[in-house]
């Protein structure tokens, strides 16, 4: 409808130049040679493991898993079609949207991975550093560039960090994996408080680009809210300050125990003050280096993200209101899945993958194809992946919403549950992941089955239910308003339930959930969730959200009602 050149020249996203293209092509060739040497028995298992991890390849429970980087969750329709093709030709017809805005394939053949990487390189994609103890794919707000509450578009800085961190000579062999998230909006939709480094980018009153550094947040075995160690740093120093933080971590982070190797443990050991002092001391010595960003470089990268010339579209408010009235299901979808856009007449749309019976985040090749087509037909050829494992179409004219909704319903992507209990964040768990203590997908399904009445879900209001199959917390259970963690009890799968966590979006402060009692068996989970919800409904003040009730009354009333006692 707007622009649909298959190569998306109008899509506001980073495009490779000859430097990037050469780098990625070299990397694919290099990895192909390493794979061949491994298959020929010339490279040891351990050495190849570290090398394949830096190229996105895990060996999972049933087969290898390839994690493709979707830099800061942004895809063009052409790229998404390539992912559909990979799902079809190299996998079993589907892919999985991860909580780090990436796409995972669960069934590739190890020997075919170099071919997949080559297909990705053709559309300016890669799988570099999506696993291993290195700087991972940088994540950000899925509404970057279109959100009404944004002060500075974070994507250019994500891209600058992507380039800087790619095959970094000094920081590719860290004590542990390293995750950076960036936000540029008033509301933090990137969970910057629970990342190894969280960055807030903005402009000051004089128009200067600044960045705040939060370090040492994280989930996993020891969930921690990060500490702000630097505010108002001029953007030119983004990389020099990152270098200082990374050097302190690389040198002093623990390497003797992988559970104590994340930066949060170092920050805690040194105290935030002590850590900041070390970083500042280091920074003083690198702050004038050649890594200081030039205005030309910042503006060069920003140039790729200039918003499209949104054609002015007729105001569709009245039509939209009529359509909503005539069709309550559509009305519900608009209320939950359609987000405010900074350009009048447009909206950002979340296409939910959270359909009962489908593992959260799983999408078929056909769905990918359809989403790519909609991005071209209704938008500017751009798609985002959110950390809640959904697709986002960032620029849809309001007048096209009804048609898009109908198409989405036909393809199983029209669920109206964004922000509600059934928009479950869920890691692959015991069905796929070799580290799991318990399955997570069947738990999500049982919950979606039990709570399928939209009137009830609406009455409950905003609830984030997050499930992880083990302490690694890929399903972000600590920051779920309801969190479920798979644990192993004498060889059996049990689930520990917590409440009151939050990732820091919707204008709330981030918090780590509190466990409400002994773990329960899989069959019991939906009942326990039901009792938690009943408790909330019984005890909430008028208009109070689940999170607010938890914060006001604490866990005791929940414990009492769920376990029949307070402990």
């Amino acid at each position, binding site marked *: 409808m707007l622009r649909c050149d298959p190569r998306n020249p109008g899509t506001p996203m980073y495009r490779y130049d000859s*430097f990037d293209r050469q780098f990625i092509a070299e990397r694919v060739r*290099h990895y192909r*040679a390493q794979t061949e040497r491994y298959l020929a028995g010339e490279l040891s298992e351990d050495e190849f493991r570290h090398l394949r991890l830096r190229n996105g390849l895990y060996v999972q429970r049933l087969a290898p898993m390839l994690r493709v980087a979707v830099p800061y969750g942004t895809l063009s329709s052409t790229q998404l079609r390539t992912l559909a093709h990979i799902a079809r030709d190299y996998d079993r017809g589907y892919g999985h949207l991860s909580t780090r805005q990436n796409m995972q394939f669960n069934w590739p053949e190890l020997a075919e991975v170099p071919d997949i990487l080559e297909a990705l390189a053709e559309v300016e994609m890669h799988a570099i550093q999506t696993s291993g103890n290195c700087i991972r794919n940088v994540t950000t707000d899925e509404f970057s560039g279109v959100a009404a509450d944004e002060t500075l578009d974070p994507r250019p800085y994500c891209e600058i960090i992507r380039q800087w961190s790619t095959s970094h000579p000094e920081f590719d062999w860290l004590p542990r994996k390293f995750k950076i998230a960036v936000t540029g909006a008033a509301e933090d939709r990137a969970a910057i408080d629970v990342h190894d480094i969280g960055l807030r980018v903005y402009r000051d009153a004089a128009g200067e680009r600044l960045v705040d550094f939060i370090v040492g947040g994280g989930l996993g075995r020891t969930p921690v809210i990060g500490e702000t160690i630097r505010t108002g740093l001029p953007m030119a120093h983004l990389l020099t300050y990152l270098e200082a933080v990374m050097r302190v971590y690389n*040198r002093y982070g623990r390497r003797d125990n992988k559970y104590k190797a994340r930066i949060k443990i170092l920050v805690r050991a040194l105290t935030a003050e002590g850590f900041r002092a070390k970083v500042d001391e280091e920074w003083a010595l690198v702050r004038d280096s050649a890594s200081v960003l030039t205005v030309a470089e910042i503006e060069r990268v920003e140039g790729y993200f200039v918003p499209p010339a949104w054609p002015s579209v007729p105001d569709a408010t009245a039509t939209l209101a009529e359509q909503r009235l005539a069709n309550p299901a559509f009305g519900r979808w608009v209320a939950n899945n359609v987000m405010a856009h900074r350009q009048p007449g447009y909206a950002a749309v979340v296409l939910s993958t959270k359909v009962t019976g489908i593992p959260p985040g799983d999408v078929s090749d056909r769905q990918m194809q359809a989403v790519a087509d909609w991005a071209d037909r209704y938008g500017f050829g751009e798609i985002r992946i959110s950390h809640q494992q959904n697709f986002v179409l960032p620029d849809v004219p309001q007048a096209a919403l009804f048609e898009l909704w109908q198409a989405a319903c036909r393809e199983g992507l029209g669920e109206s549950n964004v922000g509600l209990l059934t928009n479950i964040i869920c890691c692959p768990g015991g069905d796929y992941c070799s580290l799991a203590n318990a399955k997570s997908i069947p738990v999500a399904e049982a919950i979606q089955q039990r709570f399928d009445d939209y009137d009830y879900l609406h009455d409950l209001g905003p609830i984030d239910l997050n499930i992880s199959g083990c302490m690694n917390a890929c399903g972000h259970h600590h920051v779920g308003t309801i969190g479920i963690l798979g644990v192993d009890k004498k060889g059996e799968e049990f689930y520990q339930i917590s409440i009151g966590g939050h990732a820091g979006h919707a204008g709330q402060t981030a918090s780590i959930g509190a466990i409400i009692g002994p773990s329960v068996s899989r069959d019991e989970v939906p009942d326990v969730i039901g009792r938690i919800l009943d408790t909330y409904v019984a005890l909430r003040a008028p208009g109070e959200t689940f999170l607010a009730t938890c914060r006001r009354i604490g866990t005791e009333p929940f414990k009492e009602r769920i376990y029949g006692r307070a402990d």
Partner: protein
Amino acid sequence: MAALIEIDRVSGTLRGADAGRAGLPLLAPEAWHGQADAGLRLPGDAEPEARFAEAPLIAIEFPAFHDGRGLSLAVLLRTRFGFTGELRAIGDVRPDLLHYLVRCGFDTFELAEGVSIDLADPRLVPHLQYYQASVRDPEPAFRRVARGRAA
């Protein structure tokens, strides 16, 4: 005896190193007092000292190839302490990781016991250019080469 490889600082090519240098004794920091006929042997977590800059040779030990502390130590010795002598990587040194070591300022590499190397193998130099600044390329790509622009 493990193979010793060196890099030509100018051309960046790798070649077998001369055996004489390999024989220089290596001393711990406490035992080294500025002797010109002995090198220093540092673990990856050593704190660099200004006096180290005078050493003819510093060998940094990698207990495991995936332990990156020695990389930061090398960068500090080169960029902060102005060490210009020979910087050698010893321990669990593997061919596929030489490019990291080279960029962090190492110039000789004692390969892990039993590891062989084909110096003509292209994998030793996976990329012609990198994005970031490093000891070998003190300027990042955005200062070094003309990068693309948005259409």
